[in-house]
């Protein structure tokens, strides 16, 4: 606040100087009284300045509505909509379907949140952004949640916003032409590699090249259509991205069979939703909603089969708000929030299958890191992975 006041004083001084120096052609007059008048004006100005300063002091003391007046939950409920920043350019994660709806894994996470706080999965507004805009967008506080395949890194956690939960474990890989005969990323010496602008993949690629002395030349593109077209036409020798997105985009190439994804994974890319800094309640709500999706699958609660009466499983009952609680009241959510969410969008596994799995871009889940943890209670779900959340109790 001190800085604000200082700034204000400096600026008003500037205005005073400007006003004071301004007796030029406009004020040609032979009247000697002018000078006195000028002085009076200055005094008046001084008084006004004092008044404004007083106003500023009031602002500083927080007596006027500024910034942190309301919790985000209330803002969202008043607005009647959850605003998520996401994408429309990668099928599976975020795209636009034939009917003009936003669809994808990331979009479904936003729908789950909207169901939890507003009871309506369609009460979302998707702000489409490019990769490079993600940081400034979540910092601006204008969106309630950022779900745009955002890798969780410590500096982003510190500078952008809070990461709620890893919803997808990815790793960066490379795609090359099959006829190039390359079988390992270390053979990419002197290659030109296409990459999307403003992503961790860009940074990891630099690390990888420096580390192994590969001297890779980089071509950075703003958008997916351009980078895919450039790689397809042979403008680069390789295309690097998160492995899952490579798999999704490979289908977009003119002849997918001519391209292979190298076995190397050069980075850790935990992807998950991000919320703006400064509102713990909202942060906790998002974490809880993500946990509901994961435990929904772990306890075998599916979209079409959400019990509304008590079952013989205490954990399921607690999850669905049929007995006990897991903090719904403290978070400002309804008792049966999990019922609503699971009915509206399904559990984690269903969201995965719909967008990334068999009905989507067909990324295998079985045996990978995105299966549930090894001893998850469900019977026929993929296990042995890393999808795990804080227990709901």
């Amino acid at each position, binding site marked *: 606040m001190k800085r604000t006041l200082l700034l204000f004083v400096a600026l008003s001084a500037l205005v005073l100087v400007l006003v004071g120096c301004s007796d030029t052609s*406009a004020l040609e007059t032979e009247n000697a009284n002018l000078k006195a008048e000028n002085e009076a004006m200055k005094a008046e100005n001084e008084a006004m300045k004092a008044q404004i300063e007083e106003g500023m002091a009031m602002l500083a003391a927080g007596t006027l509505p500024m910034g942190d007046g309301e919790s985000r939950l209330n803002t969202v409920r008043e607005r009647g909509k959850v605003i998520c920043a996401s994408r429309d350019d990668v099928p599976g994660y975020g795209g636009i379907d034939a009917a003009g709806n936003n669809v994808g894994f990331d979009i479904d996470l936003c729908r789950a949140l909207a169901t939890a706080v507003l009871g309506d999965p369609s009460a979302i507004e998707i702000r489409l952004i490019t990769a490079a805009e993600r940081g*400034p967008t979540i910092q601006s506080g204008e969106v309630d949640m950022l779900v745009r395949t955002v890798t969780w890194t410590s500096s982003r956690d*510190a*500078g952008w916003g809070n990461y709620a939960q890893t919803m997808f474990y990815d790793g960066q890989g490379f795609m090359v032409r099959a006829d190039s005969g390359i079988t390992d990323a270390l053979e990419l010496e002197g290659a030109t590699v296409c990459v999307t602008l*403003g992503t961790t993949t860009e940074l990891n690629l630099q690390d990888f090249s420096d580390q192994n002395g590969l001297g890779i030349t980089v071509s950075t593109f703003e958008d997916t259509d351009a980078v895919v077209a450039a790689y397809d036409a042979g403008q680069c020798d390789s295309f690097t991205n998160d492995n899952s997105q490579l798999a999704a985009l490979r289908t977009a190439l003119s002849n997918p069979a001519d391209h292979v994804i190298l076995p190397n994974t050069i980075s850790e890319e935990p992807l998950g939703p991000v919320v703006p*800094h400064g509102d713990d309640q909202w942060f906790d709500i998002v974490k809880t909603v993500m946990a509901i999706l994961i435990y929904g699958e772990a306890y075998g609660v599916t979209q079409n089969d959400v019990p509304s009466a008590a079952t013989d499983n205490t954990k399921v009952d607690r999850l669905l708000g049929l007995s006990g609680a897991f903090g719904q009241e403290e978070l400002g959510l309804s008792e049966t929030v999990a019922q609503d969410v699971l009915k509206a969008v399904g559990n984690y596994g269903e969201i995965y299958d719909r967008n990334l799995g068999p009905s989507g871009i067909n990324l295998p889940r079985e045996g990978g890191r995105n299966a549930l943890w090894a001893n998850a209670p469900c019977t026929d779900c993929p296990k042995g992975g890393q999808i795990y959340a804080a227990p709901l109790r």
Partner: protein
Amino acid sequence: MDTASRLLSYQGIPVWRHVQIIQWAVQIVSGILVVALVVWFFSNMVNAIQDRDIPSGFSFLSREYQTPIGEHFLPYESSDTFLYALFVGITNTAIVAVAGVFLATALGIFIGVSRLSSNWIVSKLAMVYIEFFRNVPLLVQLFFWFYIVLELPAIRESFVVADAFYLSNRGFSMPWPKATDYSIAGIWLGLAAVAIVAGWLVYRRQSRMEEQTGRSGYPLIYSLATALVIGAIAWLILSFAGGSSPFYISIPEPQGRFGNIVGGFTARAGLLVLLTGLVMYTASFIAEIVRAGIQSVGRGQTEAARALGLSPMSTLRSVTFPQAMRVIIPPLISQFLNLTKNSSLGGAVAYSDLTNIAVTMTQTAPAVSIFMLIMASYLAMSLTWSLIGNLYNRHIRFVGG
């Protein structure tokens, strides 16, 4: 009532009708309003920065950038600082701007003159060119060129001319002088500058002599000879002293298993696309400016020149153009400014211009500070163009009398 109106009057005129007082009031009110608005914005911003732990400040400038930059003309490594990377971005934008301005002006003048050609088909072709490129958004044109460049052959099937010029969908490579030793090359460049200054002095002296005595002074020949002789002598001495010549010509050639071109100078696809797009787009505006400029010169001027026996080309060069310049320059400069600003679309076609690099930087550095820096950079560039424009304007006005 009476006292009130006396109190509220100045020089016998009620204050609300006194011109000076109204003017003062307007200034003070507008000044205070603007200041209050700015203060309000800033205090909100400071609040938000504190509330949401948004990074701010400029300490990042000395940190390592550690991010790749696709195309760079200055040597750049990932261990360089943010400040240097920003400078690389400014250079990239400046290079596209300067190259674009020269090419667009040349093409624009060509098209503008063609538009006025007496040849029907040439004039109509120029018109089609102008109407097409002027009326389609630059972004769409850039993508158009982007896909055209993708149609070029892959790197292994490049068009090759004389084993030295390569054109593929990755870019265009050509031989280019490279410094053997940076210090020797630097010394020679310094001496070359001296040679140019000397040549210029000789040119001035000879042309003054020509004006005063009326005898041919051959200023161009003398000055070129002076500059070349000094440059060559410097070259020879440095070559003997250093054991090798200051510069050598580096020939591009494909290397490695990917056949990427090494050596020479390579304008990569992003630069080619951006430059082509900017030049074709801006040239259409410049052509119209040139046409209007030429048409502004009175018919009598041309007719008189033709009557004196000047060829159409000489008429254009020595009579019409110098006069048209005065009309052409101000809008031309604003086109240069537009071209510089439009180069910010480079990111869409994989050219690392200033905006592109700055936007990437917001990933790892405070966005607020980055935007202040890039606004300042663009304003500095636009002021530079205005300055050049004003200087040139003064110059031609002086010559024209």
